[in-house]
């Protein structure tokens, strides 16, 4: 805390002297904050604790014991089942996103230890076409859940998505069914699934696996819902209730279990899992 304040004091004197890229304007409080400090605080604002978008790489670092992460199905990439072209051909859109993000598609899946407990983890990446779910996201998450079921591991999925990927048409829509069916079998095997909702989690993702957690946890002030705000506004032509579709709003409406800040997330997940999951001791033998 003292260090925080010192640094803030130091940089606040003359932010203009600091080269570009070292500063962020916080969307939460509007203040200019030191980027390095934000990063040290797991991508949250030192002034108001606004939760910035967190990359999948950083999220895995946040949740998984170092040296234990093993990625699965990294090589999967999108096909073009409909030969889809809007402002650009779909394969070109994919290639550009891959170049921009260094990822093959909008989710990273794998296994690792969370405070010593083996888990299956999927983390979505908003930077990749808005975290949209097409066949690759659906297939990777399904494999994650199936492997975790076979290994009797809990599943954790960190969601962020604008919804299903339109460029793969109904194939994207059906990934909602595919992932949910896999989670259904995981559930019937008596294994826990923790769903983490981050800003934003909407539409087809929210209406499938993201809503199916045995425990559903949201990060503070995330936008979470089924229909986008603009469409709802056009529909009802009225002002929306205050805080509509935020984590706090859906908590109040009974749709999630907890709101947990990023600093506490790993500890809270470990705590919850210690109640819901008892790994078979024979597995280690």
């Amino acid at each position, binding site marked *: 805390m003292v260090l925080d304040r010192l640094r803030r004091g130091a940089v606040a004197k003359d932010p203009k002297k600091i080269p570009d890229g070292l500063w962020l304007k916080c969307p939460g409080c509007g203040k200019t904050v030191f980027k390095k400090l934000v990063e040290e605080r797991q991508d949250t604002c030192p002034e108001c604790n606004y939760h910035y978008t967190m990359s999948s790489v950083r999220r895995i670092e946040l949740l998984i014991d170092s040296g234990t992460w093993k990625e699965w199905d990294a090589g999967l990439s999108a096909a073009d089942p409909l030969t889809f072209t809007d402002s650009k051909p779909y394969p070109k859109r994919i290639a550009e996103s891959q170049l921009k993000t260094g990822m093959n598609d909008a989710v990273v899946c794998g296994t690792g230890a969370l405070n010593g407990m083996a888990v299956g983890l999927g983390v979505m990446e908003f930077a990749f076409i808005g975290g949209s779910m097409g066949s690759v996201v659906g297939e990777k998450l399904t494999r994650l859940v199936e492997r975790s079921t076979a290994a009797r591991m809990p599943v954790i999925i960190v969601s962020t998505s604008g919804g299903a990927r339109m460029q793969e048409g109904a194939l994207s829509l*059906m990934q909602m069914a595919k992932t949910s069916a896999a989670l259904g079998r995981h559930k019937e095997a008596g294994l826990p699934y923790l769903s983490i909702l981050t800003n934003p989690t909407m539409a087809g993702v929210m209406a499938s*696996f993201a809503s199916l957690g045995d425990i559903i946890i949201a990060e503070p002030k995330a936008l979470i819902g089924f229909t986008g705000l603009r469409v709802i506004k056009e529909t009802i032509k009225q002002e929306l209730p205050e805080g509509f579709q935020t984590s706090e709003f859906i908590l109040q409406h009974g749709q999630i279990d907890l709101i947990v800040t990023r600093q506490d997330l790993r500890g809270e997940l470990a705590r919850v899992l210690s109640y819901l999951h008892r790994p078979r001791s024979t597995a280690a033998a």
Partner: protein
Amino acid sequence: MCLAKAGQPRPQPSTGPAPRAAHWLTWMATYHAGVSNPFTFLDPLVALEAKIQELEQLAQSRGVDLSVEVASLRQKWAEESDRTFAGLTAWQRVQLSRHPQRPQASDYIDRIAQEFVPLAGDRVFGDDAAIITGLGRIGAHACLIIGQQKGKDIHERKRCNFGMPHPEGYRKALEKMRLAERFHLPVVCLINTPGAFPGVEAEERGQSLAIAVNIRDMSLLRTPIVVAVIGEGGSGGALGIGVGDRMLMLQNSYFSVISPEGCAAILWKDGAKRDIAAASMGLTADILSRHGIVDEILPEPPGGAHRQGDAMAAILQAALVRNLDALTKLPMAELLDRRYAKYRTIGQVIEGGELLTGARMAAAHG
């Protein structure tokens, strides 16, 4: 969920202002106001129908025999119908799926079920008229029938919220499906929705949760499920009662990740490009069947389902009975494994430079 707020008046399902964002509704309003006729591609058929009617009336009033002329015109009409329906664009099929005279779930239930005991309510919040549920006999099969209903006149349309369900509609459907599971009744789902309702109360009561839980629990339900798309298959709102062992689809219906209007507005930044969007999204039965999503395409009778409701209902009934016959013979474990495999194999990905789809994709990992 809202019931937790003790002492407050119980919120009612929205009957408020007409939803503008529901493209189906905007489309209907334009049609009824005569602003535009989306069915000009049917004009030659309509003209022939008028001529046939005219000749028949003439024959009756004058007592002359025009049967040869009428027969020849009917022949011409059938040929014209074949030509028209074979060459429809994706957008024209979307329009047909929204035709105001197209039979709805209630019309099919009347025609295909020997009796029907409607069951209301989700036992928690309310009764959503956008989803009909009830017990009925189809052929020899005592079933649970679930159908999305848009409404036939303005009063029913308002009551049904224009076929856009609220969460309580999805929860009602699941509640009755659990009943069906307990008493070994197969489930028949008739899909016809522009989408789940995009409104404040729907969000407050957990639209996403309701749909997600239905999708998961339908994949696990221990009784056969046959799904038939009879009109619009609008996105998650359709899938919320749309997971099953077999998916049938009427020839002039659609099933899509988003409405063509919505897709055009987002990807083309122009809602008017809906015909291009419709053609791009692969939302028609033929393409969906190639991708393993649709199992059976039901041909519509000459003139389309909206011209020959009885004939369409007979085709649907025969298909339902045939599928129910087959599914009810399967052992439960096999039924559920096949259902899982049906969804497990949908999609296309590239792995190791190889295009994987269908069973090969599902088998690709250990």
